[in-house]
């Protein structure tokens, strides 16, 4: 049977693929954007860092424009976490060095899986910490601008305080699960397949 299979496999060698043959144009191929997942993660990290820096600058402007201590605490915390997230993204960006494809299949798959899980973890932490506190700051700022009253007066109402606590209680898990869902949607299947392939290859070693 095996000889038969070898013969059949050799026949596959002779099959030409005109569609693919037409794509063998080096000037075109060398200019194509790479779909290497490590490169994509690096691009994502750069975009996230730029957004982080822009948002951080906006927070600083808001802090100067609305000098209230409550707002200062909330946005100060968010600003701190934003700086932390940008620093983490930068650190991860430097760590993500794609080994050249000459490494073994197992090494490459493990490298990709490790990089991917680090990136997903960072995204989830950002979702868990930054968005809810940011929402609390936005709540106070919105209340101040909307009601035209000082924050102390606006926040002194029990209903407003309860609304703030509820919104944070709802927003923390919501943001966390939303970040998780987004990650799963974007990279979930890819991460699962990588993990499955690594396990399959190691299985029985």
């Amino acid at each position, binding site marked *: 049977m095996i000889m038969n*299979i070898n013969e*059949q496999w050799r*026949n596959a060698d002779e099959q030409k693929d005109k569609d693919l043959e037409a794509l*063998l144009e*080096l000037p075109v191929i060398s200019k194509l954007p*790479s*779909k290497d997942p490590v490169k994509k993660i690096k691009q994502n990290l750069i975009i996230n860092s730029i957004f982080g820096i822009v948002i951080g600058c906006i927070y600083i402007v808001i802090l100067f424009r609305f000098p209230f201590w409550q707002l200062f605490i909330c946005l100060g915390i968010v600003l701190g976490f934003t700086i932390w997230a940008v620093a983490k993204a930068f650190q991860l960006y430097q760590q993500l060095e794609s080994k050249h*494809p000459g490494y*073994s299949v197992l090494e490459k798959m493990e490298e990709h899986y490790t990089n991917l899980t680090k990136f997903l973890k960072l995204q989830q932490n950002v979702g868990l910490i930054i968005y809810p506190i940011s929402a609390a700051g936005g709540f106070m700022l919105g209340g101040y601008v909307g009601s035209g009253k000082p924050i102390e007066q606006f926040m002194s109402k029990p209903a407003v305080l309860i609304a703030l606590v509820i919104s944070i209680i709802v927003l923390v898990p919501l943001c966390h699960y939303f970040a998780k869902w987004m990650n799963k949607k974007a990279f979930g299947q890819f991460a699962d397949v990588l993990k499955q392939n690594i396990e399959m290859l190691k299985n029985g070693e």
Partner: protein
Amino acid sequence: MTEQAFLEQIRANQGIIYKLVGLYAYDAEEKKDLYQEVLLQTWKSLDSFRGEAKFSTWLYRICLNTILTQKRKNSRIDFKESLEDLPVSVKNISEEKQDTIRLQQAIRKLAETDRAIISMHLDGYDNPEIAEVMGISNNHVAVKLHRIKQQLANLLNP
């Protein structure tokens, strides 16, 4: 290596790329994407080719690494029809080619990493070479090959 020499090497060994992308791509569009990505990665990694191994072995490794670490549409291809139910257009071609298509279908039914191992084996690589490319031990390759051959036999001769 010059561009011209690179293209000549690719043309001489493009059967490897065709066969491998054919074993993993979900559809024709993905086949083209994978083919282009393999060529791009091969071109960009050319510095790592020092001529110690054969170009075909090096290309094999790049192909598998690129394909198995790409984010693809669907990892597992489940054919609705059995191996015997080839499309009418295929049934009109020679029996030899039908057998080849059946073999490719059967290999596509295997786990992704098993497809890589059996294709290297069928292309004449010995166990230590397969072990080096895949990153596992020789013994493990032997065990896996034994299991894969059994699976293939079951698929081709139900």
